């Protein structure tokens, strides 16, 4: 089972077309293994970017260097998955 310990989802809001272009370039860097969960649609619209833990520093430095505003939407993807799994198990136990 693949684990996602420390992976984060960042909510990014590009303020202009130039930042959108930069984010698209970022998304094309295969070695970062990032994934746009909610895609870029235009300036002012939020995009959600899943970032594996090993790429976090590089991505955050990139965003800050280019003054692209972001917030952490999911602090630890694995923690949420663990919670979801627990809920499913509990729900099945209740049914029985």
């Amino acid at each position: 089972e693949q684990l996602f310990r420390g992976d984060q989802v960042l909510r990014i809001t590009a303020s202009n077309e130039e930042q959108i272009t930069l984010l698209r370039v970022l998304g094309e860097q295969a070695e970062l293994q990032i994934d746009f969960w909610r895609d870029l649609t235009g300036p002012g619209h939020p995009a959600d970017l899943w970032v594996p833990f090993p790429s976090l520093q590089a991505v955050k430095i990139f965003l800050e260097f280019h003054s692209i505003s972001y917030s952490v939407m999911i602090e630890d993807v694995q923690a949420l998955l663990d919670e979801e799994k627990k809920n499913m198990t509990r729900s099945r136990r209740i049914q029985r």
Partner: protein
Amino acid sequence: SISTFDFASYHTLEEIYDWMDMLVDDHPNLVSKIQIGQSYENRPLYVLKFSTGGSNRPAIWLDTGIHSREWITQATGVWTANKIVKEYGQDPSVTAILDSMDIFFEIITNPDGFVFTHSSNRLWRKTRSINAGSSCVGVDPNRNWDAGFGGSGSSSDPCSETYRGPYAHSESEVKAIVDFIRSHGNVKSVISIHSYSQMLLFPYGYKRTPAAHHQELNELAKKAVSDLAAMYGTKYAYGSVADTIYLADGTTVDWAYDNGVKYSFTFELRDTGRYGFLLPSTQIIPTATETWPALLDIMVHVLEHPY
């Protein structure tokens, strides 16, 4: 049993397939189950057929969960299928639709991916087909349709989340729907449901040229998102795929529209703004509930505007 099934929880493939059997058993005169093909890993591709009789009636196609990680979508599919059954004979709109049309509903459109999200990688989006010459697995089944296939709005890299596949309809999950809709020949609407961006979109995605019925589709989308918002205030964007998000090649709705299905839409269901694909199960019922009036708007419009 059918009465104790918990619609407010996420379920495995087996649980959902079992539930479908129970729904059919409980409503044999309204619901039947059709197998339209097999997935790459040989799982059956099931479609629920809601019909009150007649042969080759005009039909509405619904599918949920072509991107396996979008769990709120499959869960909304289960709730919606149940709602259709419950409302037939009660709600005048549902009754009118099913008295003259059939509804085909594929709740788990990408079963291999769905099972993989439960067993190995909760965030898996694509199919599970092996890609020759690459260690990366899977094709994005919403870039695999023969509508602008291969353009820049998809990826040729098997490791990408939007990998289009080696050729159009290479994925058995896609080919099964294509064959079914073509052989049916009387499908009037295709509604493909995804999550999560809160949008209601229509053709085109592979080009910026407006669809021939752009104005009608746009007005219908406007009404649908307005009725959706009336429930909990969830705001949806609407418009063509290319105008609203970006150029996307090889998508379900574009293929449907280019193959004569005028009322082709794709939903992106809600997020609370925090969890993305990991929406807590407490969101299932609110999401499904608010989506229902919008779905009904489209289906009623299809009924009232035969072509």
